[in-house]
């Protein structure tokens, strides 16, 4: 049992990364418009994030230094500050979106207006960050988030045409109603959603929170190899459910309430209950993950004392910065902006900021001063270089595609 709970960090990181509010909706949008023809992107993304998170987890375990400390040290103050600016801004957008996502999930459960749930959401998130132990937080959010497996269950209950689904996935083609530019825009968005930097910030800082050392390198690897593929599987299930129910009905997903309809059709109210609990846990976990990442990135760049393992008075600026982030998030949501729209943009911006975050980690993972003799092996470096090219390509293509397709509309 302890071994299973030891995987909680990886599972929670993956849930916050793969099935947060933005991904829940993006995966459903992709399924409802493109069927399963973009599943290969999820696969590429899962391998990439496994590679990236494993490297940063190993760096944190071997040297005790979390990712953003490494970024500042390798890139220097100016480039590091630019990276901080971009990463922090994206994090803040995501925090805003996740708080909105929690409120949307609560509205789905209760039909009480979404705006009324926002104060509840933000206070709950803050109390957990202020008070709850890291281990309890990751275990509870991670386990409850696994309820999203109900998407896979519902898919089986819907008795789809498996041959057709497999055909869409294995022989990808742009559907007639969509353009090539739209297809590639969503490919970049899905890739950015799978490889968001905050997953890496959270995973490596979490490794320090848990006190992982060189003897925990194996556990770091298991976390990565269990958590992220699981997240990818959940993503694909969501897309498949949408492809089976919503695509034939001519529904293009625009909001969270449409995402749960296939589950209700497959498994009725019981499945619906599970999926709402899962969505609530996933958005709550993502809100925790992104808020903590905002604190981690600032604290690690400026050298502040940080960590949930310290008393709040011993990490004062860390906690203050997170409180301010939550306040800003609520302020933005109070203007009535659509949280789903906010994440759809932040996911694309993540793809743009990715190279600056990835490169320092790759460099340090090869540095014997940090890693001792746990530096990257040759095959890992080869794979990492391939991914560097893919990441640069996605980063360069993101803005032009966004302009050409009008953000995928």
């Amino acid at each position: 049992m302890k071994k299973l709970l030891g995987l909680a960090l990886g599972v929670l990181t993956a849930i916050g990364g793969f099935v947060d509010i933005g991904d829940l909706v993006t995966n459903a949008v992709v399924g409802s418009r493109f069927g399963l023809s973009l599943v290969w992107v999820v696969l590429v993304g899962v391998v990439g994030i496994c590679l990236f998170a494993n490297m940063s987890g190993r760096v944190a375990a071997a040297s005790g230094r979390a990712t953003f400390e490494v970024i500042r040290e390798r890139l220097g103050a100016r480039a590091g500050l630019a990276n901080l600016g971009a990463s922090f801004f994206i994090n803040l957008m995501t925090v805003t979106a996740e708080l909105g996502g929690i409120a949307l999930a609560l509205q789905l459960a209760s039909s009480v207006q979404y705006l009324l749930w926002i104060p509840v959401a933000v206070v709950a998130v803050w109390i957990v960050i202020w008070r709850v132990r890291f281990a309890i937080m990751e275990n509870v959010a991670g386990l409850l988030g696994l309820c999203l497996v109900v998407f896979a269950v519902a898919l089986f209950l819907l008795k789809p045409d498996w041959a057709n689904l497999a055909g869409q996935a294995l022989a990808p083609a742009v559907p007639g109603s969509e353009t090539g530019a739209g297809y590639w825009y969503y490919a970049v968005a899905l890739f950015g959603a799978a490889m968001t930097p905050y997953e890496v910030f959270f995973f490596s800082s979490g490794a320090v929170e848990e006190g992982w050392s060189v003897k925990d390198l194996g556990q770091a690897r298991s976390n990565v190899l269990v958590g992220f593929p699981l997240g990818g599987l959940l993503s694909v299930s969501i897309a498949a459910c949408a492809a089976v129910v919503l695509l034939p009905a001519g529904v293009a997903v625009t909001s969270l309430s449409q995402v749960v309809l296939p589950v209700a059709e497959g498994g009725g109210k019981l499945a619906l209950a599970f999926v709402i609990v899962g969505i609530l846990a996933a958005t709550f976990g993502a809100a925790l993950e992104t808020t903590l990442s905002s604190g981690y990135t600032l604290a690690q760049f400026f050298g502040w004392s940080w960590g949930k393992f310290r008393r709040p008075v011993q990490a004062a600026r860390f906690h203050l910065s997170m409180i301010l982030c939550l306040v800003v998030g609520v302020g933005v949501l109070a203007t009535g902006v659509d949280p789903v729209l906010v994440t759809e943009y932040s996911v694309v911006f993540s793809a743009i900021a990715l190279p600056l975050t990835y490169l320092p980690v790759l460099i340090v993972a090869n540095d014997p001063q940090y890693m001792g003799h746990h530096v990257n092996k040759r095959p890992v470096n080869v794979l990492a270089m391939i991914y560097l090219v893919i990441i640069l390509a996605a980063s360069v293509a993101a803005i032009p595609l966004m302009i050409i397709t009008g953000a995928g509309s």
Partner: protein
Amino acid sequence: MTGPCLLGLAGCLLLAGCGSGGQETLSKAVKDAGSAVATARLALDLESSGQLTSAAATTALGDMVKDVNSSRTTVQDLSPDTPESRGARQASLDVLNGCVTGILTAQEAVDSTDGSPAASDAERMLAASARDLDELSTRLGAG
């Protein structure tokens, strides 16, 4: 029932020529509204058969009303310069209004405690809106 008559007139005018920028906006608005109506029918159907809670159904229908309203605003903001495009815009607005009425009726049916309006009434209105949207999009596509 002036709806089909207006549609017929608009159809003739559309075939005679149409401003293309406005036409793209109209096509997209019609497509989005079609998706919203399909969602509303699905949600209504699932709720009637006891597979969807009324809270979730109400939320979904409320979201769809917002979607159709935003399509309607987009169409309203068009400034057509020819009589054909004015006719197209008016026809689209009429159909979109019908969609909103249908979805609102569905919401009332879900929330109602005394069985009125009936879910079947709402489904009938939504099905009619779906047919109108199909016709409209065919004509816009042909124009």
